Structure formats: C-alpha cells, structure tokens
C-alpha cells in the first residue's frame, strides 16, 4: 500500500519516538532511504525492526556512515537505522581488561575512555567509525599484525534480528566456549544478518614505549625484503606496513615496535643494523605521515583489498602493478604487508572499464580461484583474494566486487535462516546476499 511521501508509518513511530522522513544527505551509494530512525536502546531497535518487518520494509544499519558505501548499492533501503543514540560505554572492567560498549560508540571516544586507565582496544582502522560499524565491516589497521581484526578481540555480542528478536552470544570473559559464536558470524557481515547493538571486547595495556623503523626502497622487492627480515628477526613487530603511492615512486616500509622503552630502543637499533646493506633505515618516535593514511583510507573512488599469504608479499606487489599497468592505471598501493593485506586505490574519475579489467586481471594473477564442482574441494591453494571494498556505481556495475566465494551456498543458507524475508541490507554483499 503506497504511503504519502513524507508520512512516517504509524507502527514505526509507535516503536520509536525518533523517526523522520529521510533527507538528501541520507542517501546510501546513491539510493535514497524513505525513513531514518535513531533508537535509544536495543529494546527500541527491536520494536523498530519488528514494525519494519511487519510493513515489509528493508532496513540498513548506520553508524557514522564512514563505510556505508562499501559493497553494492542496496537493492532497497526503506529504513535507515542509526546507532547514534546507543553510545554508552556500558562497562569498563579495567581489572579484567574487558569493556562492554554500545554499537554507536565511536572508536576515538572509546580510546579516550580506555586510555585514561592505561588500556586500549587494539584496533586502528583508518577512517575511525563506530564500534558497530567497524565490527560489521571487519575493518582493521596496522595493529592487525599482532592483535588481529575486530572478530579476534570480540568476546560477546548483542544483536537484534530482522524480526526484532534480541539475542546474545559469548559473554564478559575472554575464555568462553559455551554455545556458538554468533559474534564471529556477525563480524564482517555488513548488516545483512541483523543489527549489532552492543559488543564486549578484550583489551590490552597501552604500551610503555613505541618506536618506528622506516626505510625507503627503490623497488618493491627491496621493501618486501625489509618486511621479511623484520618478521624473522628478534624485533618482534606489532605492525609492518608498506606504502607505494605510484609506480615510479620509491616504496616505503615501516615497522612498529612496542614494549619496555629501553627494549624498544635496543630492538629498533638492532633492526636498522640488520636492514643496513639492503636499505637505509632510520628510527623515529612516531609513525610516518603516511601511516594509517594510505589507499585504505581513501573514501571515494575505487579501493581494492588484496588478501594473500604473507610469504607472497613480493609476488602480490608485482601482480598488482602488472595488472594495473595492463589496464593503463597507476593506483596508490599500500597496507599491512606482513599480515597479508594490501590495498590499491583508484581515483574517482578512473575509467570504469579499465578499473574492471584491473580487478579481473589481478584476480587471475593472484590466484583468486573459482569454486569447485560438486563433490570436489578446491585445492588448498586458493590462497589469495581480491575484494572491491567500494567503488563508484559505474565501476560496480561492471565488476564482481567479491569474486568467487567458496561455501557461498552455506552462506546463503545462513542468510536465509537469519533473515528469511531478505530485508536486512539486501543485495549489498557476496553471493547475491
């Protein structure tokens, strides 16, 4: 039944006071929602989702919107569900190194709260965002080498399903294997399984001392060697990043060390000596200007995420440049080389056809293999992948953003169980989800 363009349906307003018609600025990847709701808590979010389900409305969760343009444009977006009012740090149990946080809390604010007690959530994704958004997009930064991605730090979660059911899994303790880990399932699920309202994380102490060892290399192969040496030395890096802004630029590497201050100083000096013959390295108290600001941080244009086994860093860098060159492109390249993740960024005005052939050629070169036939498993060597994180619609129309996905049938089955009506973030994800 068609509704008047700007009248909020009764059931939605009953569920939550803060519902309004959408405005121009609320568009998601060029798709305009009809209504925007900002529930105060999980119970209101639950009532909203139940009401939306009853009205057959599609729903899209939104934190700060820093990564809302990731994936395909939504097939439909009736209700934008904002987490802005669910912004409390519910509990910081410093003695247990655990914090429970509502999904709308921004990472930088959380860092302030935890930092006051000398602790941190060891996540540094470029572009910040909210706890819920970072979890839903599995966003991570340089610290992923030592501490992992959001799912590795998550120990408990509260979600609201498409039909309004509130559910919890995990808990407040780090050691917990009771039941299935729904938190891992929701990490990286981009809003397609439900709304995350609260998360509990394990924390780490803030380091007493830090140092950054940087090296500028003429060629990618030298930068890979720097990373490899750092990883096999006794330096014990917490992060090791690469930055290669353009094909004819030097390739920069930077290794971050943490720990007891005199130990950090010792290790930094030892590392520079180790790197000496191959690269001129220097020690700094703070990160280089490009740290956390590379292609992964680019908000517009086309950004690819390339995942590979860490030992294949050199080959990955070479494949990226070769595929780009073949398509007539010169992306900014960089990322957590030691952790097996790189990003490549094209400007917003890059030719869409060229961008599409770059992605396809790179997938081929890097071995992002297709799914097996029935009854046969892919060889264990489908050990790399290329995902287009976000791109202008002219590019997404020509590209398979996620590439071949093993177990896609299982994923669809999971989606169907959690959201049988397909109302959560429809059409944005892998496998047609």
């Amino acid at each position, binding site marked *: 039944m068609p509704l008047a363009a700007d009248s909020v349906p009764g059931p939605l307003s009953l569920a939550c006071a803060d519902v309004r018609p959408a405005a121009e600025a609320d568009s998601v990847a060029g798709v305009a929602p009809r209504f925007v709701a900002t529930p105060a808590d999980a119970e209101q979010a639950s009532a909203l989702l139940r009401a939306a389900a009853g009205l057959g409305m599609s729903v899209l969760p939104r934190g700060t919107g820093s990564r809302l343009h990731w994936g395909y444009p939504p097939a439909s977006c009736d209700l934008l569900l904002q987490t802005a009012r669910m912004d409390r740090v519910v509990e910081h149990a410093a003695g247990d190194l655990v914090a429970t946080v509502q999904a709308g809390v921004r990472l930088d604010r959380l860092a302030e709260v935890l930092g006051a007690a000398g602790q941190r959530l060891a996540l540094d994704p470029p572009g910040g965002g909210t706890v819920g958004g970072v979890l839903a997009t599995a966003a991570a930064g340089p610290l992923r080498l030592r501490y992992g991605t959001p799912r590795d730090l998550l120990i408990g979660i509260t979600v609201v399903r498409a039909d309004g059911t509130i559910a919890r899994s995990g808990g407040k303790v780090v050691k917990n294997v009771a039941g299935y880990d729904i938190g891992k399932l929701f990490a990286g699920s981009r809003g397609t399984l439900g709304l995350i309202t609260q998360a509990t994380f394990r924390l780490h*102490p803030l380091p*007493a001392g830090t140092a950054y060892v940087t090296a500028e290399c003429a060629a990618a192969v030298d930068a890979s060697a720097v990373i490899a040496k750092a990883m096999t030395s006794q330096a014990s890096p917490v992060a090791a990043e690469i930055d290669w802004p353009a094909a004819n630029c030097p390739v920069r590497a930077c290794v971050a060390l943490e720990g007891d201050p005199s130990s950090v100083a010792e290790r930094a000096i030892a590392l520079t000596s180790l790197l000496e013959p191959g690269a001129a390295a220097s020690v700094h108290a703070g990160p280089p200007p490009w740290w956390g600001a590379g292609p992964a941080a680019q908000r517009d244009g086309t950004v690819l995420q390339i995942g590979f*086994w860490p030992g294949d860093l050199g080959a990955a860098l070479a494949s990226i440049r070769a595929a780009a060159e073949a398509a007539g492109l010169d992306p900014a390249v960089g990322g957590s080389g030691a952790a097996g993740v790189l990003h490549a960024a094209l400007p917003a005005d890059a030719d869409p056809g060229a961008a599409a052939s770059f992605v396809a050629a790179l997938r081929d070169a890097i071995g992002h293999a297709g799914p097996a036939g029935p009854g046969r498993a892919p060889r264990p060597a489908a050990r790399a992948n290329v995902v287009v994180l976000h791109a202008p619609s002219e590019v997404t129309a020509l590209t398979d953003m996620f590439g071949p996905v093993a177990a896609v049938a299982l994923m669809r089955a999971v989606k169907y169980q959690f959201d049988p009506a397909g109302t959560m973030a429809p059409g944005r994800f892998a496998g047609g989800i």
Partner: protein
Amino acid sequence: MRGRTPGEGHGSPRALASLSPRLAEICGDEAVITDPMELRTYECDGLTAYRCSPGLVVLPATAAQVAAIVRACAAAGVPFVARGSGTGLSGGALPRADGVLIVTARMRAIIEIDPASRRAIVEPGVTNLAVSKAAQPYGLFYAPDPSSQQICSIGGNVAENSGGAHCLKHGFTVHHVTGLEIVTPDGELTWLGDGTGTAPGYDLLGAFTGSEGTLGIATKIVVRLTAIPQAVTTLLAAFETTGHGGAAVSAIIGAGILPGAIEMMDALSIEAAEAAVRCRYPEGAGAVLIVELDGPDADVRAETAAVRRLCEQAGAFEIREAADPAERAAIWTGRRSAFAAVGRISPAYIVQDGVVPRTALPEVLDRISALSAKAGIRVANVFHAGDGNLHPLVLFDDASPEQSAAAEELSGAILDECIARGGSITGEHGVGVDKSRYMPRMFGADDLDTMQLLRCAFDPAGLCNPGKVFPTPRLCGEVPGVRRGPHPLVASGRAEIL
C-alpha cells in the same frame, strides 16, 4: 531435508546394517569396525562418565572418503559423530548407538609448512604437539597448547576451540586457524576461509570453530604459526593462601604486564600432584603460582624483575626461576599432571571448567570453599588465574550414592556462581553432553534459538553429532515471518533458483 527435528536420528538397525558394506566399499574392509568388543573401545572420550558403544566405527584415510561416508549416512538417515583422539572432556565425541563414529586417526599428515607465511596445512588427526615439533626447525610453534597436547588432535581442537595455559596472551584455536576444508553434513567438501584471514563473505570459519562437531567435519586445517619468543622465563611462587596468590595476579595484570601464562594450584591439588609426579613444589604452600613471561629478551628481563617484586609484595615465601628448559618442564609437570593426579587421592572426580572475571576470583574461591565444607565434598582447585578459568576438581567416592549426588549438586552450584558473576559454564572443555543442561542458565531462549539458526543452515536433517551442546533442538523447517513473492535473492537477479 526440511522439517526434521535435529537430534532425532533416523538410524534404524537396518539402516546401519545396510551402511556397513557401503562404508567398506569407500574405505576398505579393514577401515570398518563392526565387532562389538572393538566397538566398545570407542564408547567414550575423556569424559568416562558417559559411555555409549557406537553402531559402527569407520576410519577414513582421506577427505574424499570422509565426504563419501557422510553422504552415505545422509542418504540412509543415519546420524554420525566425528572423533579425533578422544581426549575431550565434555562428551563431544560420545557416539550414538544408532549411528556411525567417524574416527580421523588415520588422517595424520602434515601436508605443508610455509614458514615465510607462518602457515601450515595439516590433517585433522595430527596431534597438537606434532604441529609445534614440525614447525620448530623454522623458529615457529603452534601457540594453543592444551595440557593434553601430546595426544589431542588438531581436528578436535577446532571443534572445541581449545585453549591451554598460554591462551591468555597467545589466543585460542579460533585465533590460529585461517582456513578449513570441511565436509558439510550433507557430504559436500568445501573450504571456509582461504588462509589469508580476509576471505570474502561471512566468517563461517569463526562460527565453525568451537561448534563441537555439530556443523560438519574438518578435513584440512590451515593453521597460523607463531614466532618462538626470543626469551622465556618460568617462575614458581609459593603463597600461604590462594587469596595471597590472587592478589599477586591482580597486581601483575594491574601493572600492565601480560604474561604468557599464569596458573594457580591450591593445597589439595598440590598434594595430589606431589603424590603422582613428585614435582617437589615448596612445602607448606597453600597456593602456588606459575608465571611464564615470553617475548624479546629485554622485555622479559624487565617483566621478570617486576613479577618477582609484585609476588614478594603479595606475600610469596619462596620464588623459583627455571634456569634451563629442564627446570621449566619440571615446574610445569606438576600443573599438567593435576587432573590425572587427583585420581590418586580420590576414587572419582568431576572436572569443572567454569570461568569468572579475574577480579571475582578471590570471592569465588571463598564461595567454593564454603560450599565444599557445607556439602562435605572436597574440591581441589587448579586454574588459569590470568583469565579466570577455573578447574575445580570435585572429589567424591562414586561407590556412595549420597556422595555422587552431593558432588553433582556442588558442581552445579559452582557453575551457578560463575554465571552469577558474568562468567561462563565452560572456558575450554566445551558443552558436549555434559553441560547442555546448564545452557539455559547462561543463555535465554532467544539466545539459544538464534544460535541454532546456524545449526539449521548447516545441518537441517539433524544428523551431524546430534544431541550435543543444545538441550532442546530447534525445529528447522519453520520459517519465521511472512514471505511474500519470489525469494528475495532470486528476485534480485543475483542468485539461481533456491
């Protein structure tokens, strides 16, 4: 097949009997066990209180054979249970009399080690310690280290999301598995993840790890290897009471130190360990703390000095530091032998696996002590003090019905204490059959229902290790909510007919 209730196996004796020649076709005659005496040897895992002789046992050699076996079971409507080394402590590998037990012991190959990537691909029957041994020449090791690591299998570790003494700092199995080849409950081989940690789509790998064999069978595991730390110090500190030991732990964590391991044992468990392995812990200790620090040389030196000081301040009356690997092993022997050791001071015992927030440890230990005194049942405490994971060993004489009942009740009361403090009923042993009845105390009906959606997605027929983890199976045929028109995925044009 839709609409079946998980947990209701359809294994009739006839169906089982018809399977036997089919399994022999798949794996060879010698891989199928039908003799009742031999079948009995598989009747339980590490939790001997629950026994059930399997209908059939089969020992496949390859992933393709596992897939064919599962397909045959699915076609016959016969439930199946996977078993690694059978060391589990929650009955996760407890067989079904109407089902097939699929034992992975023959799948023991380390397929590949890639030191530059810090990855290895292993078969599920490989033992945990074997992975570390194979990685050692490359300066690497496999971090999750359950006490049973000499025997327990990687496949079993994946099912239980096993931890071990070093998991506070180094993580559990789920942090060290980057790819899994699995056989789905309908007999298809598929990969979850690709070894990179960034594979597109849902993190089914993260959901599968720790699902206790109920979502499929892992046939290849891509593990993450960790650099062997430059330095390791192992300290043994003796205190008069567990209260003093607990205060030391809080002080250490409060100082921003993250040890590789902190373990505590109380007087009764020390007594048992001494009797079993002569570990010679300091006499008169009401509690001992084992603290292990690992990392770069200079950091370890600084932390060791700090930990010594903090232990002394908390009242340690003796502190030993291992001077070499042999002394390090000797310190750990007592702790690792604790479970088996209490078998010498008591006819029977229940191993609990509750977790509380670390800051609640002193209070909970007092409560356990009070409950134990009231029930007249002794409790020996061994625990991962760093993460609040307790292993109260409830000692009783199983020849006495009163003691058996009291021990059972005391165990439940201890778990209630854990839940009441925001903890967990299981930190690492899993729910299995042993703790499924406690799940509703920890989770609400909606929580359990939501978890079981996963089960319905993977195993709608309810044949894959049914009856484990959840006390009440969820009906999978239901479709909550109203569906209008064609399936949304089909309507979007992005999927085939579903």
